[in-house]
Structures are given as structure tokens and as C-alpha cells.
């Protein structure tokens, strides 16, 4: 295949300003066939703007934006994508089957209604009006609309918000199935375990730029911190002042610490409290890595992150 050299989607030094706010500030992003890229970042990091640029909803002030080597405002390029946006109110009186049939009609070679419904797990909802569905069911219908056109690239913006754990895991299975068929996916999510479960590559954004990019393991490895938990009577303030401890807090009877020197800290804890019990050491998850990375990038963004 000669067209494998053309990336599925590409942003090159893209800039988008809204008035005085620079939402996307020289962003470089590349997505290849069959790859799932998770876009992470605190609120206001520019994830939504990056997606809007790739969908052709907004035009870049500078830089290049390409879908399959074309301008995303070209309908030809968009016939190869599927879209699930964060907030879209679909016509409440239309039935699920009608919504899928309508959306499929925009594409040259769509899946059948039955196949789309089966993939998204909404087969039993086809005759129901959209307004009568629960929030999680509506999200699944939106997922069916995203995949019904047999897209080569899928945009999923916070796809599992409002879903219970079972529905979320079913959606993950469906996403993996599509990737196995050669579909590429751009995913934004607030659930880091979702990125951990699905992503080939994670791209952390802050203030309109990519601050870190790599596999989930790469990202974790960049953060040397480990979590230490134990049941102890030691004083929180005293432990917090130890040089090995980066951060400490009490969770019920347990003390929770993060540290770069887990072995030294464990030794010191055991020396200081002979009664200490249930000592646990864990390496950092994506959540810690993410917190650490965005903190490095922007020390003033702590409040935003908490809000996120």
C-alpha cells in the first residue's frame, strides 16, 4: 500500500486563537492507521480545539491540518471519519433505528443498521424514541452513529461519560474490535484507566501544546514516584517532614505517601513504628504520571486540575 505513508490525521504547528486566548499553540500531532491515540490534559488544555480543527469545525489561524492528506473541510475527507461528540442533543422524537439509517445515508459504503446496532450494543433499542433512553443508552446510540459509516478514523470525545462499568467495558471491547479491523481512533477522556486500557499512544496536552507523548508505559516510567500505604499511628505532620516523602495524607486509619525512594521510606517507617501493619508499595499509575506531568508544565494550573 503506497498510502500507508500518508498519516490518517495530522496537525503541524497548528495555532488557533479565540480573541486573546491561544487555545492551541503550535500543536504537532500525527495519527497512523490502526492506532488509538488518547488525548489527555486538564480542562482548557486545548483537547477540544484540537479535535474541532481535525473535524474542520474551526479553521487554524496558522499551521497545517490534514485528514487523510486533505483539508478536513472537504466532505471527501470527512466521509472516512466517524464522530461522537461530547455534547449533542439528537432529535428526541426519532427512533434509534431512524437515527442510524439517517447517519448511515451520509456515507458511501455504510454498515447495515443491524450491524451498527449490534456493534454498539443497542439492538434492543432500535424501536425506541431517543428521548426515552437513559444517559448511558444515549451514549451507546451516539457510538452506533459514529461507527455506522464504516469509518477509517473515529473521533470519540469523552465516550463513556454517564455509563456504568459494564457498559463502559462493552464499549472498550467494541473499540478494540474496530481497531483490529484497521480503524484508527482519537480518544479524549477524563478516565485515565480508559486510556490505560485502550491507548497505543498517549498524548498529554497543557496550555495548547503537547507536553508529553508516548506509550502508557513510557509515560509511567517518566514518573519515578511510587505510592506507599500502611496502617500506623505515626503523626502525619512528622512523616510529611521526612525528606523521602513528597506528599502524605491520612485516609482513615491508613497513611498514604508518595515517594521517589520507596525502599528507604519503608525502612524508616518500619524503624519508627514497630506496630506498623499492611505495608503496600505500588508503582505510579497513569493518574500520578498525568498529575506530575501537568504540574511540571504549569505550576499555576493546580486549581484547574482539581476542577478537572
Amino acid at each position, binding site marked *: 500500500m503506497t498510502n500507508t505513508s500518508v498519516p490518517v490525521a495530522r496537525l503541524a504547528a497548528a495555532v488557533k486563537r479565540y480573541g486573546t486566548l491561544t487555545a492551541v499553540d503550535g500543536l504537532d500531532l500525527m495519527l497512523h492507521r490502526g492506532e488509538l491515540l488518547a488525548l489527555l490534559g486538564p480542562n482548557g488544555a486545548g483537547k477540544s480545539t484540537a479535535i474541532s480543527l481535525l473535524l474542520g469545525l474551526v479553521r487554524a489561524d496558522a499551521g497545517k491540518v490534514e485528514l487523510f492528506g486533505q483539508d478536513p473541510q472537504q*466532505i471527501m475527507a470527512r466521509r472516512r471519519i466517524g464522530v461522537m461528540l461530547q455534547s449533542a442533543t439528537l432529535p428526541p422524537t426519532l427512533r434509534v433505528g431512524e437515527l442510524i439509517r439517517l447517519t448511515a445515508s451520509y456515507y458511501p459504503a455504510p454498515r447495515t443498521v443491524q450491524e451498527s446496532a449490534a456493534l454498539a450494543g443497542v439492538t434492543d433499542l432500535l424501536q425506541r424514541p431517543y428521548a426515552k433512553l437513559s444517559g448511558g443508552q444515549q451514549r451507546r446510540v451516539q457510538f452506533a452513529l459514529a461507527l455506522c459509516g464504516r469509518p477509517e478514523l473515529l473521533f470519540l470525545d469523552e465516550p463513556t461519560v454517564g455509563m456504568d462499568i459494564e457498559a463502559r467495558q462493552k464499549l472498550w471491547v467494541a473499540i478494540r474490535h474496530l481497531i483490529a479491523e484497521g480503524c484508527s481512533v482519537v480518544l479524549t477522556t477524563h478516565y485515565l484507566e480508559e486510556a490505560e486500557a485502550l491507548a497505543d499512544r498517549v498524548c498529554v496536552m497543557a496550555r495548547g501544546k503537547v507536553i508529553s507523548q508516548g506509550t502508557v508505559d513510557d509515560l509511567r516510567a517518566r514518573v519515578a514516584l511510587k505510592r506507599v500505604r500502611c496502617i500506623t499511628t505515626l503523626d502525619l505532620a512528622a512523616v510529611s517532614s521526612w525528606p523521602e516523602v513528597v506528599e502524605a495524607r491520612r485516609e482513615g486509619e491508613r497513611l498514604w505517601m508518595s515517594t521517589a525512594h520507596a525502599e528507604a521510606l519503608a525502612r524508616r517507617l518500619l524503624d519508627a513504628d514497630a506496630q506498623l501493619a499492611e505495608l503496600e508499595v505500588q508503582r505510579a499509575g497513569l493518574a500520578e504520571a498525568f498529575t506530575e506531568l501537568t504540574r511540571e508544565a504549569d505550576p499555576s494550573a493546580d486549581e484547574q486540575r482539581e476542577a478537572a
Partner: protein
Amino acid sequence: MNAVISTLDTSHAHVGMPTRRVIGAYLQEARSECLRYLRSPGFLIPTVMLPTVFYLMFGIVLGRANGADAPRYLLAAYGTFGVMAPGLFGFGLALALERDNGLMMLKRALPMPPGAYLLGKMAMAIVVAAVVSVLLLLMATLLAHVPLTASQMLTLFITDLFGVLPFCAMGLLLGTLIKGQGAPGVVNLIYLPMAFLSGLWVPLAMMPKILQQLAPIWPSYHLSQLALSAVGLGQGIAWPHVATLLAYTVGFVMLAAHRLRRHG
């Protein structure tokens, strides 16, 4: 592996889309728009009930008291009143709401053929206008016994059908100007006074001189003049009214297109 190969193969088919499928997308869009509104009582009851119930009360029950020609006059007037609503509400209000709730953004991100969104809404407005027009004609002939020739009925029906278009265009412009929760109020504030000032409820001849002179400003005045001609109550020639409505339609669409291009 088969799945992978078939996905790669279809990428070549994506270069173009057969015309038949593109037309299919337009038809699906129009069908969906019609279905969603025909199932929505909040839209259908006011747009269909208001003109028909008004006609029943003022044109038929009280009609004769207002003179022999009252049922005939009000058939034209309420027909005009009736076809304004699907354009202003079904088109304009829906656009305002959908710009706010994310549906418009989703449609723009999807490969919907350009124009299908607007043409679909226009088709819906024409269907609703046809329903209103037929109901009024049935009431006029069967209940009020207004003597109408077949050609008068047909002319009125066609006038009503095409009469929707300037109000779709006006709705389109309104939809680009207003947004969100306040939108229904704004559209009503334009719809109802405009109907009154065009002589749709009370004949213009009974209104103050200044309002009579202002009437040609309103598109609904010109449509009502055409409707009156259709039922044999016309004064003067038709083409200036047709030209004015055409000019309004083009003007509204151009302004709306300008705004949509700039603000999305």
C-alpha cells in the same frame, strides 16, 4: 485479516460517492425532519391548530356576521398566517436551538451533503404548510360553503406552498441571530405582530392609516395579497408582490449565509 483487507479496499471507494447515494442522503434528511416534527405535539399543535381553530371561530362560526365575504377573506388570511409558522418555527427556531445544543456541530462534523440540513427543514415546512392549506380549504368548502372554483383552490394551495419559502428564509436569518432558551419568545414576538400588522386578523381597511401605509414592509402582507387574488378578492396585479417576496427570500438567505460563514 479479511476484515483489515476489506477496510483498506473500501478506502478507494471513498474517493467519490455515487449520485444515487447522495440523493438518498438528501431524502433521508427530509424524511427525518418531517417525522421528528410530525411526532412533536409541541410544534404541531400550535402550527396546525392555531390557524384552523381561528378559522373555525372567526371565519365560520362568527363569519357571516362580518359580511358575506368574510369566510372567503379569512381563508386567504389564515392560510397566510398558517404557512408563516412552519417557516419561522420549524425552520428558524429549530436552527436556533440546534446551534445551541450541539446537533448543528455534529451535523457539520459528519459528511452530511452540504445543503441537506437546510433542504430537509424546508421540505418539512412545505409539508406542514400543505397540511394547513388543505385543512383550511376543506373547512371553507364543506363547513362554510364558500363557492370556490377548482382553479381558485389550486391557485391558493400553490400560493400557500411557495409562500412558505420567504418565511423559511426569514427563519434561517433569525436562527443565525438568536440562540437558546429565549428563542421561542423572540420568534413569537415577530410572528404575531407581523401577522396582525399585515391584516391577517383584522382587515387592513379597518386599521389606522399609518399601519395601512406600513403594511408593505411585511413579507406576510405581500403573501396575503397573493392569497386574496387567488380566491378572487384581489386588488391590483400580482407580480409586484411575487417580486417583493422573491427579493425578501434572496435577501434573508444572503444575510444568513454571511452570518453562518462568519460565526458558524
